[in-house]
């Protein structure tokens, strides 16, 4: 039983002592805090322009409030709604095909025993990640060109007519998602390879003695063991659902393919930034952020409930 009358140091004295003792740790924390304030929290102040008639010259504070007019504009605009739907569709395809791809790749790498071959293969699939989107788009445009593109040349071998892929709305999503996989699957596999490397090797030995073959080991040991990593990556990925890699869309789309290619961010870019309507762009961005936030919270909650894995 603590005696309430015992003299104790005041809260601030203790806090002060704590800081004096641990100041190095706080000093190390400082850059992160500054980064967050400067690049994340301070810009949040600017979010209010989503509810203002913003003029760059008058500034954030000087622009008049106009309520939710920008949101009414957004949701009254068919193109915006189409862009939302396109974003979700592209993201869903990305999730469906783009998310498993690095996992599968990592599992495949894990099965390669020859060290040099493995290293070479890994390097090759990591490479596209380091190429800028502009170059990637150039490669894609060239590869799918109706006259000289390798894809159409191959189609030609089978007697098929050449297709001007990049102007066909129905081809945009497959090409875009495929490009994304080609570009990022290799690099994305690194985190899963790391997770696989962390699996206790004796699990495999034990399974070998128990008579499991490689396939069974992959399904019964590797995948369950890296499942927490997979789920965390999935949650992060879901949080980025609204963030379709917009430079690549800009570089690959055409008015002819807006129907399937126009995503929220490109729409915001065209309508908002290109025409200087920052307030409308901010409203669109805020919408994106809210959707992403809800999705992450949902995914995190589901993951915590069903697999005890969660980001927080």
């Amino acid at each position, binding site marked *: 039983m603590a005696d309430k009358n015992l003299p104790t140091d005041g809260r601030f004295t203790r806090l002060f002592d704590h800081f004096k003792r641990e100041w190095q740790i706080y000093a190390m924390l400082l850059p992160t805090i500054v980064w967050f304030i400067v690049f994340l929290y301070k810009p949040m102040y600017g979010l209010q322009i989503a509810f203002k008639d913003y003029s760059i010259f008058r500034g954030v504070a000087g622009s008049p409030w106009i309520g939710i007019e920008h949101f009414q504009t957004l949701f009254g605009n068919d193109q915006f709604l189409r862009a939302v739907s396109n974003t979700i569709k592209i993201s869903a395809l990305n999730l469906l095909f783009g998310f498993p791809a690095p996992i599968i790749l990592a599992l495949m790498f894990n099965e390669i025993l020859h060290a040099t071959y493995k290293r070479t293969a890994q390097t090759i699939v990591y490479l596209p990640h380091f190429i800028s989107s502009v170059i990637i788009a150039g490669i894609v445009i060239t590869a799918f060109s109706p006259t000289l593109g390798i894809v159409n040349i191959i189609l030609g071998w089978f007697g098929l007519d050449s297709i001007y892929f990049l102007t066909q709305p129905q081809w945009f999503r497959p090409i875009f998602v495929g490009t994304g996989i080609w570009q990022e699957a290799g690099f994305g596999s690194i985190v899963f390879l790391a997770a696989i490397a962390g699996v206790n090797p004796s*699990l495999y*030995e*034990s*399974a*070998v*003695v*128990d008579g*499991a073959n490689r396939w069974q080991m992959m399904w019964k040991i590797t995948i*369950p*063991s890296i499942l927490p990593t997979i789920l965390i990556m999935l949650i992060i990925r879901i949080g980025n659902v609204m963030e379709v890699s917009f430079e690549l869309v800009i570089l690959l789309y055409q008015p002819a393919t807006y129907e399937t290619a126009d995503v929220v961010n490109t729409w915001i870019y065209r309508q908002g930034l290109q025409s200087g309507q920052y307030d409308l762009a901010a409203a669109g961005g805020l919408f994106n952020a809210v959707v992403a936030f809800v999705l992450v919270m949902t995914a995190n909650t589901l993951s915590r409930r069903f697999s005890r894995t969660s980001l927080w």
Partner: protein
Amino acid sequence: MSGVNLSGIVKSYGAVQVVHGIDLDVAEKEFVVLVGPSGCGKSTTLRMIAGLEEITAGDLTIDDKRMNRIAPKDRDVAMVFQNYALYPHLNVADNMAFGLRIRKMPKAEIQTTIADVAEILGLTDYLERRPADLSGGQRQRVAMGRAIVRHPKVFLFDEPLSNLDAKLRTQMRAEIKRLHNRLGVTSVYVTHDQVEAMTLADRIVVMNDGRIEQIGTPMELFNDPANIFVAGFLGSPPMNMVNGVLTKNSAKIGATEVKLNGALANHVGREVVVGIRPEHVTLKASAKTSPLPITMDLVEPLGSEALLHARFGKQEMVFKAETKGDIAPLWNVDKVHVTTDLVKLFDAQTGQALNLRG
């Protein structure tokens, strides 16, 4: 002959040979412990039996079948790993069922088998739990359970107790022994702990540097170590060893002569290592003893006994003595009496035991 048979087993990693030709016969139902310091090749040998390492040269037979090129799963062995190798995402029942499912055992049979084994191991209440929710001892039991359910011809244990605290280790040791007595499955057990080896083994194989130093029952090894290594490895505290020279009825260590029995006449002047186990001294002189003057450094009470850390000349030695309830008198001890019959002699050059008593 059934059981496990190793003959001329060699293991090399590239140009480096780590196991230099091992010959060992493990009889059916026998419990053999491979013991030795880390890096001595005992685990490698075990893993070669399991099939986790390829055998570079030599023959391995289990139940008279040559196993060198047989896949681990077809050797009918089960292995218990040092860190248990439990699947963290499976509960206890599923962990134990893993090997059975892989082998496509019918479901009903799996269930009864697991229920039986869980009963034996006292795991019945924990079948639904995941490894993360179990204590170390329980995990160890699950690991053994997973081996037992398979009803293999041979159990292989790779330092299964080394991750447990001392108390649990003692408890589990006894449990393993009881299990073996009950199931009677041929077992090969690797440990670096000589107490485990002594307590568990039907026969102990002492290994050092990729070679077998000696094979024998625990008491054979304790009483008649084949060389300095075995003598020093088994027994706790280890045997005191000191260089000496033989006279016709004693070993002369510095200025002190320790009396010996036996035919020494032909060996006068031979340089030897004299081995005295800490237990083989008394504080009272008798006809069968020979005095050894010491300087007392420290008395460590263990309860009924105490460890005497003392110096003989410049040589540090440890002896055991009874406390009789009070250690104070022990501080005054200035000589111990060596039981001459039990003194071991080793050749100073080869380290091999000398048996001069005829």
